[in-house]
C-alpha cells in the first residue's frame, strides 16, 4: 500500500483540513465534530441540504457543498458512515427555519445514523425530511438484501435537489424532487482493481490480472460477480443493459448520461466508455440531453467506472442547468 498520507488514522482529519484550506472561500470546516458547511450557512429562508457518508468517495460529499447544492456534508471515517453527533450539529447549523433535507445513500449504517440524527434534530425543533438514494441496479433482489445501494445517482440527486432548494422550494417540494430524481436514475459499476482502505492496508478484494468485478458498490465491497476482463465496449454494454431495462426507457425520451470514474481510472478511458454508452443510447432512440464525465463519487484509488442514466423531465433539466458553485461542480457563476 503506497499512499500520500501520514498516519492512516489521520487521513480524514488531514484531508478535510486541507480541503478547508483550499476552499476557504466556499466552505467552513468544523473539525470536531467533523462536518463541512457552506460559508454563508444558514441561508435565510432556504431549505438546508445535508448529506454525508463514509469518506473515500471524494469529491462526494464535501466537494458538493456550496451555492446550488449541499449546505453541509458530514464525512465519516473511510467507508464508515458518520455518527449522529456529527450529523445533528451539521443539521442545526444549516437550518434557517425552513427545515432540512437529509440525502442518505441506502446503506444500513448511513440509514441508521441519519435516522437517529433526524429524530434528535426534530426533537430540537428542526423539521427534517429524508431522501433515500438507492439507484444501484447491481443489487437484484432487494427483498433478500439490505436493498439497492445509493451510488452514482447521489450526485445527481444532490445537484437537482440543491437547485430546487436554492430557487426557494419548500421542504416538502425539495424532498419530492429529490425522490423523483432517485426514482428516475439507475447506476451500475465495474472495478478493474480493488482499493485499499488506509487502516486496513490490504486490498478490499482479490482480483486476478484477467478478472474484473461487475456490479460493485462504492465501498470496495466485492460486486455481483467476477468475469473475465473484456474490452471497454463490452463492459459498457454490460453496465448499460441492466440500467436501461430496469429504468424501462422508451425511444424518444431524454436522459442525462453520467460516466463516473472510481478514482484511479484516467479520464481518457472514461471518454471511451462514454463514447460507447452514447452510441447505445442513440441506438435505443434516447436523446442525451445532458452529460457528466469525471471522478465524482469514487472508491479511493480503485480503477473502474460506473454509468448512471437519469430520465430527464423539463424541470429536472432546468434544475440541472441552474448555477452551482462548489469545489467540485461549478457552472453559471
Amino acid at each position: 500500500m503506497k499512499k500520500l498520507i501520514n498516519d492512516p488514522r489521520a487521513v480524514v482529519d488531514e484531508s478535510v483540513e486541507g480541503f478547508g484550506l483550499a476552499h476557504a472561500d466556499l466552505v467552513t470546516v468544523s473539525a470536531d465534530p467533523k462536518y463541512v458547511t457552506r460559508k454563508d450557512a444558514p441561508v435565510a429562508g432556504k431549505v438546508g441540504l445535508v448529506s454525508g457518508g463514509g469518506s473515500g468517495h471524494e469529491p462526494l460529499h464535501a466537494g458538493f457543498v456550496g451555492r446550488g447544492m449541499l449546505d453541509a456534508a458530514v464525512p465519516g471515517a473511510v467507508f464508515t458512515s458518520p455518527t449522529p453527533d456529527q450529523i445533528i450539529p451539521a443539521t442545526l447549523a444549516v437550518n434557517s427555519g425552513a427545515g432540512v433535507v437529509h440525502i442518505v445513500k441506502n446503506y444500513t449504517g448511513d440509514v441508521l445514523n441519519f435516522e437517529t440524527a433526524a429524530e434528535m434534530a426534530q426533537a430540537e425543533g428542526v423539521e427534517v425530511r429524508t431522501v433515500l438514494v438507492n439507484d444501484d441496479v447491481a443489487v437484484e433482489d432487494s427483498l433478500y438484501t439490505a436493498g439497492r445501494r445509493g451510488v452514482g445517482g447521489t450526485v445527481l440527486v444532490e445537484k437537482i435537489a440543491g437547485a430546487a432548494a436554492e430557487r426557494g422550494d419548500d421542504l416538502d417540494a425539495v424532498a419530492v424532487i429529490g425522490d423523483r430524481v432517485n426514482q428516475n436514475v439507475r447506476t451500475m459499476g465495474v472495478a478493474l482493481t480493488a482499493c485499499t482502505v488506509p487502516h486496513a492496508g490490504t486490498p478490499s478484494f482479490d482480483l486476478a490480472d484477467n478478472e474484473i468485478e461487475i456490479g460493485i458498490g462504492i465501498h470496495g465491497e466485492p460486486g455481483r460477480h467476477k468475469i473475465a476482463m473484456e474490452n471497454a465496449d463490452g463492459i459498457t454494454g454490460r453496465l448499460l443493459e441492466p440500467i436501461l431495462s430496469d429504468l424501462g426507457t422508451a425511444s424518444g425520451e431524454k436522459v442525462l448520461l453520467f460516466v463516473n470514474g472510481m478514482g484511479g481510472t484516467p479520464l481518457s478511458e472514461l471518454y471511451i466508455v462514454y463514447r460507447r454508452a452514447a452510441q447505445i443510447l442513440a441506438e435505443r432512440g434516447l436523446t442525451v440531453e445532458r452529460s457528466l464525465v469525471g471522478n465524482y463519487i469514487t472508491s479511493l484509488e480503485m480503477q473502474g467506472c460506473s454509468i448512471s442514466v437519469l430520465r430527464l423531465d423539463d424541470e429536472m433539466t432546468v434544475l440541472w442547468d441552474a448555477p452551482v458553485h462548489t469545489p467540485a461542480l461549478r457552472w453559471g457563476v
Partner: protein
Amino acid sequence: MGLDVTWAVKWLTLSAQAMAEHRVELIELDRAIGDSDHGENMDRGFQAVLDKLAETPPETPGAALKLTAMALMSKVGGAAGPLYGTAFLRAATTLGDAAYIDAASLAAALAAARDGIVARGKAETGDKTMVDAWTPAVDAAAAAAADGDTLAVLIAAAEAAEAGAMATDPLVARKGRASYLGERSAGHRDPGAASSALILRAAAGAAA
C-alpha cells in the same frame, strides 16, 4: 449481591482490549464480505468508551452501559455504531439505577439489548448478522438465570454467542453490506457476530 459497577467497568475494559487484539481479524472478516472497517470502527469506539470511563467514572452498572452506548453511538459509525449503541442503551434502561444486578435482571438486560438491535436493524435469525450471536446468547442466559448464578449466566451467554457466530459461516447474508454479495457471502463469518461474541466473552471474563 450480584454484579456491580466494578464488574461493568471491567467488562468494558476487557471488551476494549478484545477489540484492540482482534482488530485485524475483524477487519479481515469484514474485508471478505464487507468493507474492511468493522475492526477499526469497534476499536476506535471502545477506546472512546475507555476515555469516557476515565473522564466520568460511572456509579452504577446502568450508568456504565449508558455511557458506553453514547460513546459507541458517537464514535463507531457504520451499521455497528447505532446497533451496539442501541443495544447498550436498552440494557442500561432495563438496569436503571440498581447498584447490583442479579441473574434475572442480567438476562433481562441481555434480552433488551438484543431487542434493541432487532428493533433498529430489522434482521431476523439466520440473516447472518450480529443477531445470530445475540439471540442464542439471550436464550442461553434466560435458561441459566433460573439458578441465580450471574457468572453461569454470562458463561452460558458467551458460549452460545460464540457458537452462534461460528454458525453464521455457511449462511447467505440478507441484511447489512454482506447481503449485496448474495451467495458469495456464504463461507465467511459475520464480523458483527464475531465482535458480539468477543464482547459477551469479556462480560464473563469480568465476572470470573
